[in-house]
């Protein structure tokens, strides 16, 4: 008995704490679902092949490329995006530090950068500059010199 291939699949998941149910075309990827279907446009798309990191969100608490995961694979998971993380207030210290240090220019990389930084501080509350640079090695920022970002994360960790 082989399961019948599906073109649409019903899913139900939590996005930023809210229950979401949808029946989705299987080829839709997670970031397109979040942005297009749920209007969570704080998560960005910069490459669709895993390099730039702009689409990074948390799936079950783990940093995940939204462009490299099918939305239907997010069935039964907990997804957190910048909108949820912002509303919860858990990014506040980082956001202030980014603002003060001007660790942001165009802001396109910023939501994913903040989520990555917050995750780093969770697993490593006192990172060195090198550890920070290493951790964000998958987050392209084309505008800043990265230095202000590193400064801001150090400041937030202090």
């Amino acid at each position, binding site marked *: 008995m082989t399961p019948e291939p599906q073109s649409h699949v019903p899913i139900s998941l939590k996005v930023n704490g809210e229950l979401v149910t949808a029946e989705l075309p299987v080829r839709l990827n997670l970031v397109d679902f979040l942005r297009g279907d749920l209007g969570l446009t704080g*998560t960005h798309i*910069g*490459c669709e092949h895993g390099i730039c990191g702009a689409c990074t969100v948390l799936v079950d608490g783990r940093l995940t490329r939204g462009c490299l995961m099918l939305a239907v694979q997010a069935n039964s998971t907990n997804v957190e995006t*910048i909108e949820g993380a912002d509303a919860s207030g858990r990014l506040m210290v980082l*956001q202030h530090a980014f*603002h003060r240090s001007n660790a*942001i220019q*165009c802001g396109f990389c910023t939501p994913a950068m903040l989520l990555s930084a917050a995750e780093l501080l969770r697993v490593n509350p006192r990172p060195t500059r090198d550890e920070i640079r290493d951790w964000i090695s998958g987050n392209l920022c084309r505008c*800043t010199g990265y230095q202000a970002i590193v400064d801001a994360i150090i400041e937030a960790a202090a």
Partner: protein
Amino acid sequence: MTRVFPDLVGAEVPRDRAKRLLAGRGCFVEDISPPRTVHVAFVRSPYPHARIREIVSGAAATAVGVIQVLTASDLEYVVAPWRATHDRFPEMRAPEQIALASDVVRYQGEPIVAVIGTTRTLAEDACELVEIEWEELPQIGDVAAALSPGAPRVHETLDDNLFFETSIASGDAEVALAEADLVVERTFRFHRHTGVSLETRGILADYDPTEQRLTVHQSHQTPHQQQDLYARLLDLPEHKVRVICPDVGGAFGLKHHLYADELVACAAAVLLGRPVKYIADRFESFQSDIHCRDHEVHARMGFTSAGEITGLVIEDRFHAGAYGQYPRSSVAEGNQIIRLTGAPYRLGAYRADLKMAFLNRGILGHIRAVGHPIAATVGEALIDLGARELRSDPIELRRLNYLKDADFPLTSAGGVVFEKLSFDACLNAALSKVDVASFRNEQSELKARGVFRGIGFNTFVELTAIGPEYYGEGGQHISAQETCLLRMEASGQVRAYVGTTDQGQGIDTGIQQVVAAGLGIPLDDVEVISGDSVLSPMGGGSWGSRGAALGGETAWNASQKLRSNLLAMAGFLLQKEPGELDVHEGRVTNPSTGATHMSVSEIARTGHFRPYTFPDDLPTDLTVTARYASRGRLFLAGNGIQVSIVDVDLATGLVQPIRHLVVHDCGRILNPLLVREQIRGGVVQGIGSALYEELYYSEHGGLLTGSLADYLVPMAPEMPDIEVAHVETLTKTSELGAKGAGEAGLAGAVGAILNAVNDALVPTGAILTEVPLSPPRILKAIEKARRP
């Protein structure tokens, strides 16, 4: 007497707009989706040069979700063709361009068919159903081949592949070189790269046929320029065309041109009468965004035995790609190189030749620091080589030849007016931070342990704030004049509408500071509104580091106008002379005692609601405009120096930057916090140019680096911390005295890294003159030096 500005000008104020972006509340073009939006995907040329025999698109037209399939013939009566002319260079060739290729494609990625679908996904599905019958044509991929006699032509209508040539001469450089005691000579190669803004190009065009109204949201730097272009090319009344640039995710020059695909989106909106969205994917970006650099510069510099430069001769071989970019044309990078090479020095005699070809490659254009990194790298590498041959200290050789304070103002050998530059001051500031003697000790100790460390210096001139004479005389509809409109509301709070735009550089904040300082009201009482061709007064947007110098000055002028009205009104209400009053922190005060007479909001309320209070002849306008355009100069020149320290792994050829310093002079700094990270961002892009970024093509002309996995941009781990210091030489051509700062980082970093690598490689005898300094190139150079 120099004016003393309120402290707010020059204060480290974080950007207001950043808060929104930090909360994920940014609004980029792709985030905007009005009802009935449809999406475009393109069938693009896989070949660099081919004839289109037939396009079969029937299956695509009837595919699921497809609204319409457009080819060149569908657009014939909708979109006019264009030519990238520039009247300052009448001999430059400008073949006609059209939105969708009809018979011949001349670069890979050229759009041919536009499929409009209900979703981007379905439009892409349908693109795969379009069949094109091709006849491949011989492709021309390098300048030498293009310019050799009998070469196949990129444009059949032209008799050869020459795009443009020009020269500059000052004195007889050949004689100067012949008489020199030493001539250093090298050919430099700068490979091709591109801008890679993190947000790709994107546009949302909506058309209402009942009012002939085109509304465009576009990820772009220059809304007014686009408004003019769309009106003319689509034959619409200009006042019915509105271009809004919402949040823009990085631009770096690649978003201040017209792109065929974006114009097609507008045309499709006109045809369909509904919103049409086009967002370039990364693959399309690499193929169709403007590219830059790709120069070969042959250079000779002559010295006396005492080290004085006697002359410099350079020849730049360059190209435009398949067409000139529109509307600015593609000559600027070459022109900046011939203007700027050797610019920091007393050159004796100078001659520079520029020759540009057409190639079957994507269009080359203006990306951040146009020409600057090349000019600085060539000049500074030659100085280092001269120092080596002369066995003199490269720093002293620079000092000896720098233009001195007493030389200013002058018109440089390259023909640019230098009002006052600060080479010695910048060098001294750099040397106060980098102790070269102890570096040399460290260097030899490290060498004993097998670590090859080098230091590189790079003096640069930065041309900013381009004046209206350049494009004005060029015949382009590009504003270099700025206008600022200030509107004081009844609360005394102010909206500032400006023609500059902000893609994260922070100029909106700089202007906010200038306006608040100029009026004497709190910073939070000013909001800057930019990036909308309806709201903003006509202006140039952002390019060529013009925000602070032009936008800032304009805002200052406007603030002084409004302030003088406020003082006149307050004077009348208080029965005092305006000279007896000051405005400070939103209050009208007594300048000597600081005592408050009344609040600005009181004046504003009176002005708006009880205008009859004032006599008719009193200037009581609470909405004022001021404009500013420079006169009689093409550029405002700034300058600086960068110092790089790198380690080179002789076994693998990998280069690791260890330390980087920038000393920069951009005149008055409106906000050091913003300028610092602006410079660092430029340095990182410069390190990218020096070490990583390169577009590779196959021998058949196919792009091999079409993704971010292959085209390497700098990421955090490999980048050093970057120290930034300032020297402030104010320009006297404006009140504020600010010059631009956007090019400096990129302008100076490339040469600093190259010189540092060559310094590290001294023990091997290798000298590199090709960037990026990829590891294989470094090992090859070492190998070549070993076996000459």
